[in-house]
């Protein structure tokens, strides 16, 4: 499937809901059962769950940043976070999992390693808040994966190709869609949430300091989770994107292509090119063992 509009047409034609349509299509493509597809998503969710607290462990050693997830945990225990308790918890989980990734821990790339904290952050904080019944979380992840599929098909999920909008931006759109589905929204509202998210991160650059997945990546994961909640709220409130979601994805690709190479995962632009960014990179280069020529 190449577009969200194609999906809406398929649903209407076959009289199925969004989840059923996604599962049917994937099962047909892979020649397996729909149960098998959903089980695969449930397995991924459990792997994510296991890495949830890894980034708060003392043996985690990112090369540049400190462990930030415990700070967010203490803060939200002490007072009501301004951004809301669910957002703050999502941020804590996202920081933790992204830190785990930077420290050579095990993660699920969702859709990429650089954006691996966002979906688990949003999904598990929502779960703690809403106490859902059944396997609603696996369903949400399936819907998220479908949104990622369309972005991969029409645009890209690689920072080197499309900037961070294609990684953390895509993860945010996927998470927003999952939230709308889990809250009982319609397929159209799911897609509106994805469109609203992507429109507000359009142009986000990929500018890793020293080329490492740490600065600004980890905190960007911890920050952009909040966007998913707002997009879901707006979509559930009935707010619609004037530009249809398929066209928004196309524009993401166009914007990505027009970003100069320095802003596409080369570590040569954005915050990586600041004096502090360059100093960190130089210091790290010194501490790396040298290769024989």
């Amino acid at each position, binding site marked *: 499937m190449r577009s969200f509009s194609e999906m809406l047409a398929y649903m209407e034609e076959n009289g199925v809901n969004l989840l059923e349509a996604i599962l049917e299509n994937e099962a047909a493509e892979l020649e397996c059962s729909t149960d098998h597809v959903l089980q695969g998503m449930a397995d991924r969710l459990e792997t994510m769950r296991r890495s949830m607290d890894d980034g708060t462990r003392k043996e985690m050693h990112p090369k540049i940043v400190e462990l930030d997830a415990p700070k967010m945990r203490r803060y939200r225990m002490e007072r009501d976070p301004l951004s809301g308790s669910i957002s703050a918890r999502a941020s804590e989980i996202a920081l933790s999992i992204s830190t785990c990734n930077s420290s050579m*821990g*095990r993660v*699920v*790339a969702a*859709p990429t390693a650089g954006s691996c904290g966002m979906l688990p952050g949003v999904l598990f904080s929502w779960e703690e808040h809403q106490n859902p019944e059944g396997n609603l979380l696996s369903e949400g992840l399936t819907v998220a994966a479908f949104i990622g599929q369309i972005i991969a098909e029409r645009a890209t999920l690689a920072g080197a190709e499309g900037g961070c909008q294609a990684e953390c931006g895509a993860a945010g759109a996927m998470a927003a869609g999952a939230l709308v589905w889990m809250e009982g929204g319609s397929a159209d509202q799911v897609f509106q949430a994805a469109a609203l998210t992507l429109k507000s991160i359009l142009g986000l650059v990929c500018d890793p300091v020293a080329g*490492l*997945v740490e600065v600004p990546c980890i905190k960007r994961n911890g920050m952009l989770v909040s966007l998913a909640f707002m997009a879901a709220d707006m979509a559930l409130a009935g707010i619609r994107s004037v530009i249809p979601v398929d066209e928004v994805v196309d524009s993401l690709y166009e914007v990505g292509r027009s970003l100069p190479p320095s802003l596409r995962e080369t570590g040569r632009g954005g915050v990586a090119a600041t004096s502090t960014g360059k100093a960190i990179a130089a210091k*790290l280069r010194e501490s790396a063992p040298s290769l024989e*020529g």
Partner: protein
Amino acid sequence: MSLMEIIGPVMIGPSSSHTAGAAKLGNVARRLWGGDIKEATLYLRGSFAATYWGHGTDRALVGGLMGWHPDDDRIPKAFEIASESGMIYHFKEEFVDGAHPNSVRFVLSDGDRTMEMVGASIGGGSVRIQEIDGFPVDIDGELPTLVIFHRDKPGVMASITSELFRMKLNIAQMTLKRKARGKDAMVFIEMDGALDEESLKSLEGFHHAYTRMFLLPPAREEIE
């Protein structure tokens, strides 16, 4: 891309291209080699050479050479475990015109034989094997693959394919290349099914025109 590819792979961080892809390349090299590796020299190219340390590319490559997969928790400790097991490894940098920015050349040896393999990490944890013993190839390492070096002469391909037919193995993709007429040639055959040990032996003794043969067995069955 499948839904499992979008939400995946499960991997040791931090980078799908520089860590997960590197582990996979090492793993493919080991499978092609066909056993424990005594000594390996790894020539890093491009971005692999520039940022290997920060991404753990070196540890992932060594872990892969020990047969580990990209989600193996032991990758951060790959050097320590390799040293304990007696595997010797060296890292070097090399500059090759037109090389893929994330690529590496492996030279594996055990005293009796050597093998050289060039592979690239092409993004999202996927890899391409680009060269085996100086011959250009294009193998993604997902399917069982037979690599046969032989002397260019009539009937070699027919003998290989008829043997595969006898084993009821379907060929997914096949490429034949030669250096010059009547000289060294090489074929790589990606198959839907795996050869078992016995079939491999029968193929080994099958034709005197073979000089060398490698089998890339399938990776482990995916956990999912």
